[in-house]
């Protein structure tokens, strides 16, 4: 079976005033149909760029230096802006943004904004669209779904807004949904409810879900597969279960150690993510690695496979 989405060795750089920033440097993610993959990493390691690349909305000055994005058997990178807009976005790839308040246009009614996407990307008449939206909002447990369409974004609570946007992502019946840390802006209870909802929706609407987050707790609760990104590179990928049981890459281990549920005491990872403008030679994680060897600073490690079955980018496994 073809995967719902397969990002393969994606390399993206951005020309800035300070020089060329290599934001993505060999990222690979595979999302099998009907599953949920979690993409995990610290801020600044390229998660947003990955999403933007899949949607085809890169910032000015960005260029794709290599790799492919396979979606339903087609390479999205060869699509023109027009094709992406007419054939992919919304209709086949839905999107759930991180902060629903920021993502909604403050001066238009919810209905106007949601119907605008459906107008171009969903079959049927405007009346059909409204009916589907009302159905979806009801399913998302938004109170008074018909009335909600007539209200403005600031008139909803945070949790409700997130439900609105989940409904929006599903409105045109896409096969793939990308969620960009959709729960970070919410309190723990709401977060939990939303995750439950998402889990149900994957089966119910037959979608595949790419879930970007920095939170291993969320991954553990929601995802089937996992992809850890560091400094624009995939460092470890495999099933959630295998990786959580036996994390192989030192970075994954360090991240897991930071998580409050697992850590005995609060420890952070020393140092910061290297700037995409000035990257060290050898393994990018070497400067921060607790298990660093001389070899790490010389050669870029190749992909290897850990005992757990996960793909790992570390000299220990190659």
């Amino acid at each position: 079976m073809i995967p719902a989405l397969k990002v393969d060795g994606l390399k993206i750089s951005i020309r800035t005033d300070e020089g060329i920033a290599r934001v993505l440097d060999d990222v690979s993610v595979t999302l099998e149909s009907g599953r949920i993959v979690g993409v995990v990493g610290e801020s600044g390691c390229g998660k947003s760029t990955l999403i933007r690349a899949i949607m085809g909305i890169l910032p000015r000055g960005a260029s794709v230096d290599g790799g492919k994005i396979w979606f339903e058997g087609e390479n999205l990178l060869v699509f023109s802006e027009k094709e992406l807009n007419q054939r992919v976005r919304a209709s086949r790839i839905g999107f759930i943004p991180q902060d629903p308040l920021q993502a909604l246009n403050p001066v238009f009614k919810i209905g106007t904004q949601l119907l605008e996407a459906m107008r171009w990307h969903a079959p049927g008449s405007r009346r059909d669209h409204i009916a589907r939206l009302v159905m979806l909002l009801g399913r998302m447990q938004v109170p008074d779904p018909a009335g909600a369409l007539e209200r403005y974004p600031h008139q909803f609570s945070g949790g409700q807004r997130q439900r609105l946007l989940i409904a929006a992502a599903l409105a045109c019946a896409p096969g793939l949904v990308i969620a960009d840390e959709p729960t970070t802006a919410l309190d723990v209870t709401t977060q939990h409810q939303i995750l439950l909802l998402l889990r149900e929706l994957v089966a119910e609407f037959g979608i595949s879900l790419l879930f970007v987050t920095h939170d291993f707790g969320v991954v553990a609760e929601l995802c089937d597969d996992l992809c850890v990104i560091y400094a624009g590179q995939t460092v470890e990928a495999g099933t959630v279960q295998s990786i959580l049981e036996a994390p192989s890459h030192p970075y994954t281990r360090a991240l897991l150690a930071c998580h409050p549920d697992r850590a005995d005491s609060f420890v952070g990872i020393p140092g910061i993510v290297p700037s995409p403008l000035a990257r060290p030679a050898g393994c990018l994680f070497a400067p921060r690695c607790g298990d660093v060897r001389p070899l790490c600073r010389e050669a870029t490690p190749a992909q290897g496979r850990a005992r757990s079955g996960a793909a790992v980018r570390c000299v220990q496994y190659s």
Partner: protein
Amino acid sequence: MSRVLGRRQVGGLAAGALVAGPLAIGSVRTVRAADASTFITAAGLPINLDPHQVYDVPMQGIMLNAYDNLYRYQNDPPQIVPWLAASHTVSDDGLTWEFKLKPGVKFHDGSPMTAEDVVYSFRRVLALALAPAGAFLKILKPENVTAVDPQTVRFKLDAAYAPFFAAIPSISIVNPRAIEPNAKNSDWGKSWLASNGAGSGAYKIIPTGYRPLEYLDMEINEGHFMGWGDNPKPVKKIAYRPAKESSTRLLALLNGSVDCTDGNMPADQVEQINASKIAFVQKDSVMKTFVIRMNNTKPPFDNINARKCFAHAFNYMGFINDILGGYATRDPYPMPDNLWGIPKDAKGYDYDLKKAKEYYAKAVAEGAPMKRAFEIHVQSENEQSVQGAQLFQADLAQIGITLKVVGSIWSTLTAAAAKPETTPDMWVHWVSTYFVDPENWVGQMYDSQFHGTWKASAYYKNPEVDALLRKARATVKQEEREPLYQDAIRKIMADSPDIWIYNSMQLQGFNKRVKGRRFCTVGQGAEVRWITLAS
């Protein structure tokens, strides 16, 4: 944004107009108004239309076209000729004047004009006591204007006043039957008449075609008492479309959208207009003198040598020939040189910086504060007064006198001139013809009883001159008055209270289709009844 929109939309949106600039003075398209019977003038409008409230150059256009007067100045040089009046008599003591009206004169509403209407008009002028009343207020009481019979008006003056007759044409005869129904709280209908007409003149004011200072339409009065026998093809409609900017006025004349400008065409535009195919400049001598006033009460102007120093420092001929393009005549007298009463033997002051320096030294020796900074106030909106002052400034600088040019406006200047303390060191103005009589110039400028008015703002006081001027004013016969004025002027010139520069020439641009215009210095050629538009 990876998406770049509209690079191509940017193009030459704003480019066009700016480039046009200086290239644009090539061939001029003419936009002739198709209507060959409408005379379009860019001359200014008076502040309102009531000839008893306003008396200035723009008002002449209303007075001479929409109204009639008892006598009227005609021709060049001006002659006073009977108009509504057929004739007049004056008593030997010069106090009682009787005017006999022509029969059959009708106002615009068709009602016949009688002596009572003339009485009403003069009483209205005296009651309003505005500009045109100036010549009469001191010597004429309202009850002393009476109708002897329907065709005869009698004036009994309080004192003999020679200029009385010269001032008669300044009063327009108005129709009380049109005015009185519109009068409010016995205001003599002055609000109403400010935007309407109530005359008998050759043209009728169309009230709906009037917006103050912007436009005014008048149409022909076919039944005018003078008839139209002397002009078989008169203008049917006069359209006043005043141009506020000198440059716009010029362009309008050059593209044929107006038939004439006002009479203040700058000399520098003359050549350009005469070079055009469509327009020409008419030059006429007028009685309008250009004076730099000195405040004789402020040191050092109380010193005669100081005043003479200044009088010798002005470059008269340079100003007239180079700046005014020769369109003015040097007039060294305190009066127009083409008026009677000038002592032709008297010699004026000439531009001579050597003499000026000598007088400077004399004045300093006498303790006059010649080193202080002087101010000359000019009417900012009037280019000529500014240029004259700047020229003076440059010359005075050569003999070590500092002069500051201060821009001002007419109403501020006249208000300042009301007191010797507030009157500036020097200021510049013209004296136009309000009536053709030496009284209009020397009489009101140098008789000390007029101190406090702008005309007398030199604050010159010489008892001998006062006596001569007063005697001349009370004498009726011109041949008796002439030597009195000549004597007074000799004395005034010897004292050099002011700097007299030139007598003006009126420059007015006309479209070449304008024929038959007649000029008279009083009214400055504003009378349209003689004009024919060639097709």
